[in-house]
């Protein structure tokens, strides 16, 4: 998305352009409300405050290889509390996208989960938990799958786990929309 903010260039411009409302990032006061509000802040390599300074400083590689955005679970406390109205959670999404696109997210299983989830969505139009869990765990953490057994069984016996996916009627319509959106995204 084209955004014209004076003096914004390099990695900072890249992040601003990738985020609707991202131009607010230049107003960061370095107050640290974001990291202090984050339930996973203590586990982050760099808190959002530090990440914003690093983005401005052009530390592209360090930012994209950090675990910061992968600690974000979209609780939006930082966004809601930021005195400068920076869409912090959305910037974390942008960093996830750039990091995935360049294969730099090597320290987390999150991209694999996301990919498996959306592949199933693209195919059926609905999410399919059993398919998601079996594919994701088998490919990424087979040993963890054993631990999931008792829970899966509890879910199943209570009728909370479907064995087959549900497919929407006009999945072709959804797929046409997805295909067009991808083309438009690639073109910009």
């Amino acid at each position, binding site marked *: 998305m084209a955004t014209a903010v004076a003096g914004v260039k390099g990695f900072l411009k890249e992040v601003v352009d990738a985020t*609707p409302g991202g131009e607010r990032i230049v107003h960061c006061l370095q107050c640290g409300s974001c990291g202090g509000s984050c339930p996973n802040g203590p586990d982050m390599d760099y808190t959002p405050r530090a990440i914003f300074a690093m983005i401005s400083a052009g530390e592209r590689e360090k930012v994209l290889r950090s675990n910061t955005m992968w600690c974000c*679970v*979209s*609780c939006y406390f930082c966004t809601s509390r930021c005195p400068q109205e920076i869409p912090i959670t959305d910037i974390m999404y942008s960093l996830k996208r750039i990091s995935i696109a360049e294969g730099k997210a090597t320290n987390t299983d999150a991209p694999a989960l996301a990919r498996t989830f959306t592949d199933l969505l693209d195919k059926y139009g609905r999410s399919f938990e059993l398919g998601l869990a079996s594919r994701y765990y088998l490919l990424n953490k087979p040993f963890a799958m054993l631990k999931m057994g008792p829970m899966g069984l509890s879910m199943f016996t*209570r009728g909370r786990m479907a064995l087959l996916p549900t497919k929407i009627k*006009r999945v072709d319509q959804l797929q046409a929309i997805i295909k067009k959106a991808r083309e438009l995204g690639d073109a910009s």
Partner: protein
Amino acid sequence: MKYAYYPGCSLECNSAAYDVSVRAVADLLGIKLIELDDWNCCGATEYFSQDELTACSVIARNLALVDPQLDQLVAPCAACYLNLKKTDKLMADHKEMGGKINEALAAGGLNYQPGRVQVRHFLDVIFEDLGETAVRDKVVRPLSGLRIAPYYGCQVVRPITSGDNPEYPTRMDELFTWLGAEVVDYPVKAHCCGGHMTQISEGQAFELIRRLLQSAVEYKADTILCMCPMCQLNLDAYQRSVNGHFNLNFQMPILFFTQLVGLAFGIEPKKLGFGKEIVSSKGMLEKLAKQPAGA
């Protein structure tokens, strides 16, 4: 009162108790929910992590499918609710992005004008469109003696609030006061359950779940009430794992708020999806049964 209804994938199966209790409560309150025909998954947080334009286009298909006769869409799941609301707002605030989303929708013969559909959470429909008198009128089995911990989680109250406080929401608290329950005012009611972290980094997720359960226990809650399927799943289905991880022994029933609203309205537990929870709610139901009705 007629609304389009978007159940979302979780309510189809893993949170069927939420779906049946929403429908039963709506029916009793005279709220007509018309399920959106052929709706698709909202993509949760997973699509936004990969491709924003596709994420929004997938979500916008649902907005475009809303019957032209209806202008409100009810979504009980927090992630669906936020995704639908966020996409509508994004299309309104960022015209260029909105144009591209409509270009994608056009490939499926659809179009959506931002602002046409108002996305609502079911709690807000009860709170705003019905309100205290209409709710109190329907109470036949007050929840007196029951200590409930309202759990709001994140995405209904943040970042786009419908009027409740994003830090200290109170709408569910008020609703349950109308129903006669003792509402527990505990400090973590709008904190995070860990979302999909239970799948990615369980140590991180378990600590967040532990904090919620611990706080509810300290405040002597009989049950935690959720308004999001992910929150319910994390707190209920992973409770045993959290106990194992920290060597604790939580036995906290985790229900959907609509299940308890239904009880207060005199609807049979079976019709509200009771029994689908993994941590049993029998003790809580027995405690309620021991209370003199109307006390």
